[in-house]
Structure formats: structure tokens, C-alpha cells
């Protein structure tokens, strides 16, 4: 397999990357590539331009900000997994990132990339939503803070504009009781359904086009999950109820 033809760009500053995104038609940002490159290999994605941000220095910080943790665009999932700061301030994020694929994938994959990719079955978007976090989108027009509640728009769809680069994600501290539980066919697979508890807030993933907030007392209300070879809609609803019970039992 071979990706379809594209023009490759490797900017060395964020400004340069934003200028490219602002001027190129049909460009995709390449960060960790653990979701984008398979899509290219399968030719499910055929962008005309790839803007590889991996050679931008100083974009991989994980730092404390406003009582939470900020994770920059090139911070690898493995780095977040091993971060003592994240474990101390936002242990929910540490627990969640361990459920993302396998360590070898996490060595390359980025947290911000998972958010921008917005796979409905992915853990990190639901964590951002449960914690009431936000992302910072940068473009030549300036910075824009987008709250988690308005960031996820649909399946693989976010509020990012074509000229914007997601430069940072911010997760609030998770000092209270927290849990992330999911059910998948094999370890490391995408979840059939999953729940994230952050104190008294509950977010679900794998059961709607985007992660959704739900009422812990009646988590399946209003949900209409899809069915596929791996799970029927009824089974997904059952998982939501059971996993929510377990998350709040602790």
C-alpha cells in the first residue's frame, strides 16, 4: 500500500505552519500520524497537501496552567502517560491515555492529534468533555479558545477551520473521584462503548457521532447508538448503563 500523491510541507515554526494552512487548498496536518497515515494507506483520505508539524521545535510541552494541565500539539501520548505532572494534577488523563491503542502507537501518537481527529470511539475527546477542558486553535488571524462542549461537531468533525492549527489542549484538574471504563473486543481496540467520570460529570464515547455528556442517573436517555458487526445498539446501551454504574460505584 502506498499513500495517494500529496505535496509534502515541513514547516519549522508554528507561524509558517499557519501560513501554509491559510494558503493551501485541501491541506491536512500530520502530527503523530497514527490515525492519518492508515487513512492515507487505505486511500480513505486523499489530501492534496500534508503539513508535517514534527520539525517545529518547542511544541511538545506538558505544563501546569490555570489549575489544570496544558498539552501542546507535539506532546506524544507516551510522554503524557509517563508525566508525573499529569499523574498528580489530572490522573484521569493518565488513566485514559493508557487505554489508547498500544504503547508503540503512543510513542508516536499525540493527544492533540486524537482530539483533532475526533473519532467518536476515541477516549481523549470524552475526557476533554468530561473535564470541561478546551483547545487553542491558532491561525494567521490569531488564537481562538474553543470549549470542549462546542469543539466536537460530528464523526471526525470539529470546529477547527481549515486554516487553524490545534496548538494546545487544556484539561482541568481531576482531584475528585474519577474513572474511565470501556469495553472493547481486544485490548487496545477502539471501544464498543465507554464512559468517563470526572467527579459528578459523566461523558460517553462510542455511542454517538461525538462524545456526549449524560446524566449519571439515566445515562442512556436519548441515546441512539449505531449497530455493527461487533455490537448491536441494544448492547451498546447496556454497556453504557453497566459501565456508568461501575464508574459511580467507587
Amino acid at each position, binding site marked *: 500500500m*502506498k499513500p495517494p*500523491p500529496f505535496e509534502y510541507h515541513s514547516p519549522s515554526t508554528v507561524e509558517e505552519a499557519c501560513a501554509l494552512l491559510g494558503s493551501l487548498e485541501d491541506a491536512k496536518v500530520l502530527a503523530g500520524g*497514527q490515525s492519518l497515515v492508515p487513512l492515507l494507506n487505505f486511500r480513505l483520505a486523499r489530501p492534496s497537501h500534508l503539513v508535517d508539524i514534527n520539525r517545529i521545535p518547542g511544541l511538545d510541552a506538558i505544563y501546569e496552567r490555570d489549575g489544570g494541565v496544558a498539552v501542546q500539539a507535539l506532546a506524544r501520548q507516551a510522554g503524557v502517560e509517563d508525566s508525573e505532572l499529569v499523574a498528580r494534577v489530572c490522573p484521569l488523563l493518565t488513566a485514559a491515555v493508557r487505554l489508547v491503542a498500544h*504503547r*508503540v502507537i503512543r510513542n508516536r501518537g499525540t493527544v492533540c492529534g486524537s482530539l483533532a481527529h475526533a473519532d467518536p470511539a476515541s477516549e481523549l475527546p470524552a475526557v476533554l468533555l468530561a473535564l470541561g477542558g478546551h483547545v487553542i486553535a491558532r491561525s494567521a488571524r490569531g488564537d481562538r479558545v474553543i470549549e470542549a462542549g462546542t469543539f466536537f461537531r460530528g464523526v471526525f468533525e470539529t470546529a477547527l477551520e481549515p486554516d487553524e492549527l490545534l496548538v494546545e489542549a487544556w484539561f482541568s484538574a481531576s482531584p475528585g473521584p474519577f474513572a474511565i471504563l470501556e469495553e472493547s473486543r481486544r485490548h487496545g481496540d477502539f471501544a464498543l462503548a465507554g464512559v468517563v467520570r470526572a467527579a459528578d460529570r459523566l461523558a460517553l464515547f462510542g455511542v454517538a457521532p461525538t462524545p456526549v455528556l449524560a446524566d449519571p442517573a439515566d445515562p442512556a436517555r436519548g441515546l441512539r447508538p449505531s449497530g455493527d458487526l461487533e455490537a448491536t445498539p441494544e448492547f451498546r446501551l447496556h454497556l453504557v448503563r453497566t459501565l456508568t454504574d461501575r464508574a459511580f460505584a467507587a
Partner: protein
Amino acid sequence: MKVNGFVHPAQRDPRRLLSDHLRHDLGLTGTHVGCEHGVCGCCTVLFDGAPVRSCLMLAVQAEGHEVSTVEGLAVLGAPLHPVQQAFHECHGLQCGFCTPGFVMSVVGLLAQHPNPTREQIEEGISGNLCRCTGYASIRRAVQRASELSQQTPSPLRGEGWGKGR
């Protein structure tokens, strides 16, 4: 790009995957290609010391970096790398297709956890598929590799692990 310590000219075609570059352009066919979408783990190599999927990287992205493949673990005629020796001793392979990927993942695992627990071993090899279902022997091989690595210091151990990539 440096591969197994040797500098190679840059790949110009941005569409070339790192896995294909290693195999077709550099002739390093020890890196196997299975699923080409990051699931099977056969194409695992070390990128600046940490295991990654070479089918999920473009060769141009490796420019200026260090890549280690299974060929770099032991030169011809020299003793095997402790992880290879352990797979040999514990029958950690049958057909051998998945083996280079497992070996490179385990080299990465032992660099991170020199004395891995059972859970760490299972997590460490969970991203590699073996269709001969040799997982029990592979698990034993990882334990043995951990013992052997502590007797024989390996040049690859710990190199660049966890540093910014």
C-alpha cells in the same frame, strides 16, 4: 537518516513509507510488512530508541533521526542480541513472520522496564500479532530476555529512550 549506525541518503519521494524505504531502497528486509495500518506490529523499528510502527511513518520524516532495525541487533557471526537469544531458547517463534516486530517491541519494552512484571510483559507485546499463536512461549522469551539483558549489556538498551523525538 542513520539506520543501524550507518548514514543513508535521504528519500526524496514523500509518499514512501518508512517500512517500504527500509525494505526496497535499503534492502533491509528484516523489517516485515503485514497489515500496513498499524495493527499487526510486524514492521516495528526503533526510532531514536523508542519502538514505532514503520508503516505509519513517511521515510522523509526519519531524515536526521536514528532508526534501528532487527538487522542492527547483532552482526553476522556475532552472538545474538539477548532478546533474539531468548526467543531462540524459549521457542518464541514458529513461522517467524511476526518475530522481527516482536523482537523490536521487546527491546523497547526492556529499555523502559528492565524487570517487567507479567502485566507489563502482556501490555508490552499486546500490540503485536502472532498467527502461530505462540504467545505463551513469547511471554517466556520476554522473561528470559530480561535475565539475559542484565547479564549482557546491549548497546541498544536505554539509548535515547523517552527523550523528545
